[in-house]
């Protein structure tokens, strides 16, 4: 059995890696102008410098694909952390309104920047998103102290999300309509327009948070049995909870800052990975969820930009189509388990 488990884990990781490579290649090749595989290879290795094709690959498709991979992974890990924290299977940055909170503060910053004519750099956007995410997280926490019921927690999160979205819309409506198109696109969620500076920033942030989460995996495992048992196993609960909140907020803030709010990835991917790997061990699941989220978002982004090319869909449209059924499946599955018990 132990051996079978190990084999399964290795096979699953191999499968994810293979899918990731495949999607990565397809992403680079396809788009409004198709570029042949050998040409892509030559451009990547620097053997060919066909100006137009080379620019499409290195300045547009490569950063975009990497962003989808890194941010998708980050978002999924954030979802996994939130699900562990609230012990709620449908918790996630989007459902709990954390993405929307980050979106609101970033929108306010953007409008301020447009009106006062200063140039934003990615650090400012990330900071704004983090503030919004943490504020929303704290509000949800405030409610979670009052409501013990899982459904109520999710409802309060969804409502916070609506309030933040309404405020964002309000702010956008009264903002100068120059450049508002930009904001509008961003607020629907998209990986487009990522440059190499963004990639550097997100890599540092996401991988730092990921390492943090990975180091917490032992405590997360203990926490899965409940707070009281975790405490008896020697987990410093206060510190652990604080770290978990900061890490999940940082991850979802980072994603929102670069790609806008992306729905359902945070909920769906951790469950898909739990099912696929057949385990709940955080030590395995955290890297698995990161890879899975990367693959999921690369795939969704590919569909978003190629399905009705040159017209581009928002990535949330695609993630919702694939992610929402997973949520329904979770609920049905849980209902069946409850009935069986």
């Amino acid at each position, binding site marked *: 059995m132990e051996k079978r488990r190990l084999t399964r884990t290795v096979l699953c990781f191999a499968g994810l890696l293979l899918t990731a490579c495949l999607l990565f290649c397809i992403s680079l090749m396809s788009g409004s102008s198709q570029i042949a595989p050998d040409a892509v290879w030559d451009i990547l290795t620097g053997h060919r410098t066909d100006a137009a094709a080379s620019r499409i690959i290195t300045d547009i498709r490569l950063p975009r694909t990497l962003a989808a991979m890194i941010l998708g992974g980050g978002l999924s890990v954030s979802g996994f952390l939130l699900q562990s924290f609230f012990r709620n299977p449908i918790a996630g940055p989007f459902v709990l309104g954390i993405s929307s909170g980050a979106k609101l503060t970033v929108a306010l910053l953007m409008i301020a920047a447009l009106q006062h004519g200063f140039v934003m750099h990615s650090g400012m956007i990330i900071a704004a998103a983090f503030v919004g995410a943490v504020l929303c997280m704290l509000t949800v926490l405030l409610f979670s102290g009052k409501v013990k019921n899982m459904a109520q927690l999710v409802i309060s999160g969804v409502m916070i999300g609506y309030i933040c979205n309404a405020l964002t819309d309000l702010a956008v409506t009264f903002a100068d309509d120059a450049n508002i198109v930009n904001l509008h696109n961003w607020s629907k969620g998209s990986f487009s327009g990522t440059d190499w500076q963004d990639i550097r920033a997100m890599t540092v942030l996401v991988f730092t948070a990921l390492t943090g989460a990975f180091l917490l995996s032992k405590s997360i495992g203990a926490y899965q049995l*409940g707070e*009281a*048992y975790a405490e*008896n*196993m020697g*987990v*410093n609960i206060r510190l652990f909870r604080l770290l978990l909140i900061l890490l999940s907020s940082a991850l979802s803030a980072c994603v929102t800052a670069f790609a806008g709010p992306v729905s359902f990835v945070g909920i769906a991917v951790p469950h898909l990975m739990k099912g696929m790997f057949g385990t709940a061990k955080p*030590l395995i699941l955290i890297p698995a969820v990161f890879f899975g989220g990367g693959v999921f978002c690369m795939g969704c982004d590919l569909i978003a930009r190629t399905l009705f090319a040159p017209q581009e869909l928002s990535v949330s449209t695609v993630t919702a189509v694939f992610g929402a059924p997973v949520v329904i499946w979770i609920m049905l599955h849980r209902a069946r388990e409850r009935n069986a018990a």
Partner: protein
Amino acid sequence: MNQKTVLQAESLSVGYSKKMIVDGLTVSVSAGEICTLIGPNGAGKSTVLKTIAAQLPLISGNVALCGDRLDTLREKDISKRLSVLLTQKITAERMTCGDVAETGRYPYTGTFGILTDEDKRIVHEAMSLTGAAHLYDTDFRQISDGQRQCVMLARAIAQQPKIMLLDEPTSYLDIGHKLHILSLLRKLAKEQQIAVIQSLHELDLAQKFSDTVICIHNGRAERTGTPEEIFTGDYISALYEIRDGAYDPRFGAAEPSAASGEPEIFVIGGGGAGIPVYRRLHRMRIPFAAGILHENDVEYPVASALASVVITEKAFEPIGEDAVRQAAAVMKQCREVICCTESFRAMNQGNRTLKEQADALGILCS
């Protein structure tokens, strides 16, 4: 302090934030000993246990684990000395029973919580001990409550504690599993010199499996002592404020109160033959009288709980005329007499007389 004392709590006050629940509690548990907290629902048994497990802050007083004050110990040190089994059900999604039991090794593993072969051996040993070894690869959600408790107990054992703290370990279990869990604790306490402190609602089992019993009532430890000291007289009925019956500590039997009213039926019993009749009449809420019973008859406790009138004779004495006269007087007021016994020997000749009188009155039920 005794060398073997594992847990020493002195003038402990426990509760939530400002609200005191139990005050002035002193507990001392030695290695190999089982200490059981009993008391009505909401008396604060769980609060006491949570405080000893350092999950609730002390309001005042002192707790020492193996000689060190609880508030000077780090979480990790506590976890190597004390393991818990709690009432709350855990929701272990996609965890096998093995995974759950292995979390007991948490305090001993490194940064990533990877188990060594030695850790795995300890977990296997603990699971074999509780009879859960065959469940190692089974999903934790798919097993019964009884099996779940065995796995959780294995988890607590794998933590290799000096003291185990169990909150109602036998609740929700069938009688077979109740006995299994408590016998295991007894064995563990003796063989591995673990101190056990637990709360129980099964009084009969608490009486049989504890070395010390602490009764939590009215915000304090009302009584502390050996089971023999605690389970005497009417104390248990008082402790639980029983109004609808009585608890007989000699047999661990709870009996409901008798149907009220003048007796309608007279039951001539003895030797246990009357018990089913008492039970049936009680179920039908028909007030009845029972007699003539020796005070050492097996059915005397049941009769005195369920009958409105019991006519008795002293133990080891032949039934005397006084008793017969008394019984006959009661019997005459009844509409029916049921005789449950056929053998009238030297000691219960009086009952033969009684039966004959009933027959003569024409109220003897054949």
